[in-house]
């Protein structure tokens, strides 16, 4: 897993609430047996028309979309199916961070497992970010802080909380599996004594 420490980059806003994993990656793209190239199908039903041509003007088809590493989604992002294809597709498209005011449980843990940083902010901060499409912000996992620049040039720093173990692994690019491997004695003891 690729490490995440701190990143400054453009924000791409999809303000719709309840963006579910069927939107992020429609089910017909789930028959592959690896995640290679899955980013090409990200939000396929939004980005592409019936003949698989880009929908003109869609935010995800605008120039710079694939150079925007920070996705700000509406409230309750990532609800629905447990498909890990969803965070893989976001990573494949070019995102490294997803920010919302609520992120669904399974999507959040899948994201942490594959190296996409999920960030939950307060409602008012999130509301401000929804108005900052295309602007540059900084997401710092070391300090657990999002930094935005207001129109008058002043900086605002918004702290966020994240599961400490997820943070530990993301900062170092560690595979969570290693922690399970180190617990072998405890697992063996449980199996023996249960």
């Amino acid at each position, binding site marked *: 897993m690729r490490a995440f420490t701190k990143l400054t980059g453009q924000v791409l806003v999809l303000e*719709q*609430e*309840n963006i*579910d994993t*069927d*939107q992020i990656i*429609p*089910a*017909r793209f*789930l*028959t*592959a*047996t*690896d*995640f290679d190239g899955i980013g090409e199908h990200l939000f396929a*039903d939004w980005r592409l028309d*019936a003949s698989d041509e880009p929908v003109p003007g869609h935010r995800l088809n605008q120039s710079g979309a694939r150079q925007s590493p920070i996705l700000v989604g*509406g*409230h*309750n992002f990532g*609800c*629905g*199916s*447990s*498909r*890990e294809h969803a965070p893989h597709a976001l990573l494949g498209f070019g995102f490294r961070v997803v920010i919302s005011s*609520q992120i*669904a*449980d*399974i999507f959040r*843990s*899948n994201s942490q*497992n*594959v190296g996409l940083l999920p960030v939950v902010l307060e409602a008012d901060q999130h509301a401000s970010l929804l108005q900052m499409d295309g602007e540059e912000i900084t997401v710092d996992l070391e300090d657990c802080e999002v930094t935005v620049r207001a129109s008058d040039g002043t900086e605002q720093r918004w702290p966020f909380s994240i*599961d*400490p*173990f997820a943070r*530990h692994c993301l900062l170092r690019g560690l595979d*969570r*599996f290693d*922690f*399970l*491997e180190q*617990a*072998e004695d*405890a*697992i063996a003891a*449980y*199996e023996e004594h*249960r």
Partner: protein
Amino acid sequence: MVSAPESPAESLFDKLWNSHLVQAQTDATPAIIYIDLHLVHEVTSPQGFDLLREKGIAVRRPQRTLATLDHSTPTLPAGDDGQRPYITAQARRQVQTLRDNCHEFGIELHDWDSPSRGIVHVMGPELGATQPGMTIVCGDSHTSTHGAFGALAFGIGTTEVGHVLAKQCLLQNKPKSMRVNVEGKLAEDVTAKDLALNIINYLGMNGGTGFVIEYAGEAVRGLDMESRMTLCNLTIEAGARAGMIAPDHKTIDYLRGRAKVPQGDAFDQAAEDWLQLASDPEAVFDSEITLDAADMRPTITYGTDPGMSVAIGEPVPLATNATQEKALQYMGFEGGQAMSERKVDVVFVGSCTNGRISDLRAATEVLRGRRVADHVRMLVVPGSENIRKQAESEGLHETILAAGAEWRLPGCSMCIAMNGDLVPPGKTAVSTSNRNFEGRQGKGSRTLLASPETAAASAVMGHVAGVADLETAQEVA
């Protein structure tokens, strides 16, 4: 005299969590919990098996792992050439990959030739693999279904599928707990699907996020096991990963004699233990709500999340925010419009939500002596081979076919629409499945979620209708 320290009251969830703790949660690290049963299907497992190959390790407990084919599988039989009509070569390869993985790692797979093959959440309980007191996971969000037996059951991602294959364990922080009490009795015509849609409507599609839900109260106790599975299945649609119901005599009766439960005296001993799992009377929940069963009517969704629903006969609600406006626009509804104005193009009865024998019986009862409207395509897909055989032995398929509906082979089919069974763009489906998201049943599809009874009634009437409408229409005729 010193009295023994009282042990703190525990909920069903607490008991399941505590008894599976391999290593406790700390400030810096998650808990490690042991997984009793790992269910596997073709879509979310291939990259999990790759982890094993990368690391050169075996599946730790193959006997705690059970696999089936359900998502990518065609529901039409093999052609004259003996080839099953997979939607793509890639889908066929995905199925072959699971077959190869199960062979390589020694896992029991219910392939095409198994008399028990079925949708993963239908097959587990049928075989008695799903048992009270267990932790159960699967790379599928509707794993919550198995909570109907008093198990802690939830969906996981593919990375975690790899973890469980390799270590039979998961890293987890303990979720919060919520008890949903449904007091009173459900009216005769109100099904578990209606109950679940009412609960999701009350909580909202994200009201359960961060929680595990225990369902309790007279109306829940009154449900049979198949109805309990429908209710727990839909828990994820309120955002909660797991839903559960304490085991009782119905749980025991359902499981007795099934292939994978203990037999004879051992079963009675197990049953005694299972009945101890219920939440202690003093157990405390992080959140608790109480609903009145008497308020609930047969229900149907109108929008693009399962929380957007109304009682049959009620008009489409007026949009009060941008999300609802967008949903109505996608669905082609105007606020205030009568739902019955909507012509129905497709009706789907099946899925891990409503593809069990009682669901098929209920839909068939509505179809008996009636015909599906000419412009409606109706698909009935049993949840498993066992259900298919049971239905055929009761002659349900004959009634279904006589009414002009299609009778298919078991699988997820039109619920996830990745096998070629799908709703065309712009068309309206009344579906007994679990998600009405944009495009869920095919790009541009419009899904109305409802019970098998309502789905069948809508198929006959050709527009959105409940069973009561059907009876009224007949009296008029």
